[in-house]
């Protein structure tokens, strides 16, 4: 694959809307100026607060919706104010400005043929809400599996449900403690669901790394493909600082080594993939799930 053409840029965006989205979570809608490329589902941006900010570095955040408004974009985010950066973000009022760098990374290959199965764990639902929108616009049916430890961690469930219903996605809920939906985890839901679906299955997932590892292993042993959106601490978000490594699988390592041996191919590090530029979405066979933290 040739080196990707870089299209990201940093712009000043403004808060259009900022509200609670289920208990403990917020929906942030930004007005983004013309010239900012439209993110695809699974891509992320870096959000940087204006001075004085309590944090130095921008915060990577997955995109949950994109709507075109003339030449401008309206970009939505679903997040939980848990750290110093997101807490400060949660205080931004409508009209406030902030800096947005992106779109960054590689998103979900939603065009891949097969039956799309979206699998969300907790607040990992954000990029999959957008994936459901994109599939609906392409008039493609999808299954939406939404799991969490307990009912109240099914982030913004009522809002998500209303939105997904409009898009025609079939919603399957699961909680580890049985407080909502199926009593069990998303992999058990996949086990029950798969025989009823037409293959091949193409899974697009986001959630805690433990869940993503389980989904990846399920896909590999059930002849499905799975695209998993990973997370990492990041500094630059653009591939420069080399700060967000994820362990490559043996198969991926051998492939990168072979590609690196061809002078024309500018491939990366055989041992570590960078979450920001090689990902954040990885096919299940790309990573060594035993070593993913």
């Amino acid at each position: 694959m040739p080196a990707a053409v870089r299209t990201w840029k940093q712009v000043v965006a403004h808060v259009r809307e900022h509200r609670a989205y289920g208990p403990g979570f917020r929906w942030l809608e930004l007005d983004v100026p013309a010239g900012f490329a439209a993110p695809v589902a699974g891509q992320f941006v870096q959000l940087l607060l204006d001075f004085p900010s309590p944090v130095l570095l921008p915060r990577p955040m997955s995109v949950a919706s994109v709507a075109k408004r003339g030449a401008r974009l309206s970009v939505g985010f679903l997040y939980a104010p848990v750290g110093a950066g997101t807490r400060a973000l949660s205080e931004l009022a409508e009209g406030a400005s902030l800096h947005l760098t992106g779109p960054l990374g590689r998103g979900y290959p939603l065009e891949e043929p097969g039956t799309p199965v979206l699998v969300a764990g907790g607040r990992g639902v954000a990029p999959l809400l957008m994936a459901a929108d994109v599939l609906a616009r392409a008039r493609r049916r999808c299954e939406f599996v939404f799991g969490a430890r307990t009912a109240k961690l099914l982030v913004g469930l009522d809002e998500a449900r209303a939105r997904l219903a409009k898009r025609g996605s079939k919603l399957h809920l699961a909680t580890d403690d049985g407080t909502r939906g199926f009593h069990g985890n998303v992999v058990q839901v996949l086990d029950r669901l798969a025989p009823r679906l037409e293959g091949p299955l193409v899974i697009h997932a986001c959630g805690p790394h433990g869940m993503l590892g389980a989904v990846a292993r399920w896909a590999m042993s059930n002849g499905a493909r799975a695209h998993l959106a990973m997370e990492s601490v990041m500094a630059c978000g653009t591939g420069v600082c080399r700060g967000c490594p994820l362990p490559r699988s043996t198969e991926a390592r051998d492939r990168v080594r072979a590609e690196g041996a061809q002078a024309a191919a500018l491939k990366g590090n055989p041992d570590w993939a960078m979450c920001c530029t090689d990902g954040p979405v990885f096919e299940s066979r790309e990573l060594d799930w035993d070593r993913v933290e």
Partner: protein
Amino acid sequence: MSQLSRARRRISPNRVNLSVRIGTLELRNPILTASGTFGYGDEYAHVVDLATIGGVVTKTVTVKPRAGNAPTRVAETPAGMLNSIGLENVGLERFRDEKLPRLRKLKATVIASVGGETPEELETLLRALGAEEGVGAFEVNFSCPNVAAGGARFWADPARLERTLAMLKQLTSKPLIAKLSPDVTDIRETARACERGGADALTAVNTFVGMAIDLDQMRSRLGKATGGLSGPAIKPLALARCWEASHAVRIPVLGSGGIASGRDALEFLAAGATAVQVGTATFVEPEASTRVLDEMREWLAANGHERVTELIGAFSAEHAQEHTPRTTS
């Protein structure tokens, strides 16, 4: 400083001559990007006009490719960031075959950063790259805090620095810039050793060794116990080291450490630096280096300076008798 600036009247920013000289290398202005924060130059070329800044210092290249350290590699701390990247890079062969042809196409002055675990590895690098076109100078990374061998501690030995630079000097006609660690008892000693060895310039300073502990898990917030601290948190520390180093030697010093504004850059110049490097600020704002340059030019114009060189060492000129730089008392 205020007397110096008030005495002058504002001039047009276009009239400010920003060029500076590092050995035989002329820079169009004193703003460079710091090694490890700007990739190999082309990663930011679509957002930063490389023809405007003074130069690009590339990611450190080593003889063999390095995979870098296991995660976690970065952790934010108040006004700064710790990193433990571990010199991840493509190695000499691919640097020469793949990166250099791209670097030559950039409209930038390129300073190649080289790193070695031993003097012999640096010798191999300079023998291979010393005469390559498209490289304006070499910065020798004597100060990586994140590698098991050949890092800042190994190179903190003045005699070793002097011997190594004397040997490297024979291998290239291009300027050699020695990048120093701040984590030494007296940076003047390592600075003087580099000058004696034949270095054409110094960079002061690399990151400071730092750490952060996650109390809940009682483990480092990095994959390793320590990392290198950068960002605004280190600026006053770096400025002091830069001041000390630049007054210990006659060769030019490139200031580095937490520079994020034109005024930050000018402080380093006033302390004695001939040029500066913008690093972590680029991670926050990709166009930080060009903004720093614009702010610097604007300040110089507003204060009537026709040449940026008027600022170099301006602080010390006024305070030479007041202070004797010391790192230990």
